């Protein structure tokens, strides 16, 4: 809530390259594997190759799923859509929030409106929001979930940007620009925005993590991607019944989502300077 503690608005001191690369490498590698995955898959994603819930080994390295489809191939197919979706959501929210946040600090009325909306949105748990809005648009599938995730994520994000930008609005150079008769658009985009790089970067990282969470949750609730699509979260739900017969059918996609969430989060954490990270902690 208290997102005002930005003591150093200017660009932070650069850190040495290896220390930044180390936390990012796992995330980058995982994303690369997930995106190139469909090319590596040995079997088509909707053809049975073994008996249902077959144990690992033989034709399928990780065994078969509830219809006897190859778990490994489906795993390799399932990642790119999730990551792509999360990326779209994170980019959109960050852009929207940055623009709105910059204007919000300059216009008290807009600022109050944003504050109200964010306060209201906090009363609706994300899962309930997904259920409501995804069903308002049956057949919307991934697109509906993307829109919901953007709607639910933006109010908080605007508040964070506004919180980081608020101290700037009262600094000398903004007051000078206001006095010289600059219009609000110029003030927001040319004077305030360039000083928020660190916050925006931290925001993007956290929004990406959050988007992976929301989208995989929707997949698990079977509200987003529909079978026979290979989606990691959907695979966990579909194969839950067979966890005793072939644990890999559930564990492998679970591990994939877990690793994605953790590695992206650590990367985001490493990229963000400490002050901005503090500001982004709600």
């Amino acid at each position, binding site marked *: 809530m208290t997102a005002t503690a930005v003591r150093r608005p200017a660009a932070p001191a650069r850190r040495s390259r290896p220390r930044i690369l180390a936390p990012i490498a796992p995330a980058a590698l995982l994303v690369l594997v997930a995106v190139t995955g469909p090319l590596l898959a040995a079997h088509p994603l909707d053809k049975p190759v073994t008996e249902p819930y077959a144990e690992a080994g033989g034709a399928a390295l990780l065994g078969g799923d509830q219809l006897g489809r190859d778990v490994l191939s489906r795993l390799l197919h399932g990642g790119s859509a999730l990551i792509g979706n999360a990326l779209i959501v994170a980019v959109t929210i960050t852009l929207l929030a940055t623009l709105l946040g910059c204007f919000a600090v300059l216009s008290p009325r807009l600022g109050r409106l944003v504050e109200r909306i964010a306060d209201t949105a906090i009363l609706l748990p994300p899962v309930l929001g997904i259920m409501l*809005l995804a069903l308002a648009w049956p057949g919307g599938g991934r697109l509906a979930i993307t829109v919901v995730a953007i709607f639910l994520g933006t109010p908080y994000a605007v508040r964070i940007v506004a919180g980081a930008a608020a101290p700037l609005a009262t600094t000398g150079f903004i007051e000078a620009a206001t006095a010289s008769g600059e219009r609000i658009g110029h003030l927001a985009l040319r004077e305030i925005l360039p000083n928020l790089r660190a916050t925006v970067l931290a925001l993007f990282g956290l929004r990406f993590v959050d988007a992976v969470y929301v989208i995989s949750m929707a997949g698990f609730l079977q509200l987003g991607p529909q079978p026979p699509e290979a989606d990691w979260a959907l695979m966990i739900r579909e194969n839950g019944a067979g966890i005793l017969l072939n644990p890999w059918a559930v564990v492998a996609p679970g591990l994939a989502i877990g690793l994605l969430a953790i590695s992206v989060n650590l990367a985001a954490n490493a990229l963000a300077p400490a002050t901005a990270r503090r500001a982004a*902690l709600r």
Partner: protein
Amino acid sequence: MLLVLLAVVFAAIELLPGDAASATSERGEGAAGVAARRHLLGLDRPVWERFWDWITALPTGDLGTSARGERVTDLLADPLPNTVLLGATAFVLTALGALALGLWAAARPRGTVDRIVDLTSTAAFALPEFVVSVGLLLALSLWTGWLPAATVTSADGSPASWSMLVMPVLALTIPQTGWNTRIVRAALADQASTPHVEAAHLDGLPTRRILLRHALPGAWPAIATGVATATGPLLGGAVVVETLFNYPGIGAVLAGAVADRDTPVIAGVVACAAALITVVLLLADLVRARTLGARP
């Protein structure tokens, strides 16, 4: 704000194609039959009229009638306490766990413990609850056989044994503790740089005393707000975890109601959840007001 949220929820359900009358219709029922029930349920009246009826009945504890003709309060009476039990247990564990871990890490800034806690809490909060659940199921149920994998409901509608609560509660607690540990740690770090804490250091007081007596009081508002915001994710996560463990909570009611386009039921669940979150946030504000009031 609660009012605005409920109005938005009402409107959102109204925008759904299809309504309660057609969603609950039997197969082979004619258009006339659907229209008749639509009239019976009052669905042909304008949405603001129905919303007004529902919202004015709310203070009397009446949540309206579901599309299948049951009273919403009866529908929620059994599962809601189960979900609240699940969420409340997880909430208490989260608060205690985060506080303990945060203090432990803050005792030696940049020490080994601090770094390990920072890394694991960062890692934990990104994990969706259902992924944690799968891991727990595998470790505690399939490999070791310590806990039952699914919840068996006893005659009064509550889980048959406490051991069935362990895994759902843990699945909810682990990601939230990760997030809140970071908040506690950050709040304590902020306090560590204040003059009175530095003065206590210079006076040579023991670290534990400085942390508990000097740093923690100032950090309370930030911690309380942080933990209070965990209420929403905990309730939402509970709905998801319930489906995995077959736990008798509002998750199942909600899934059915969404499929039936049953406005009063969904609005009732959202109202209960939002009211609960409001109360917790108000408590956090109270803590903030008291702490700030005590220190002129």
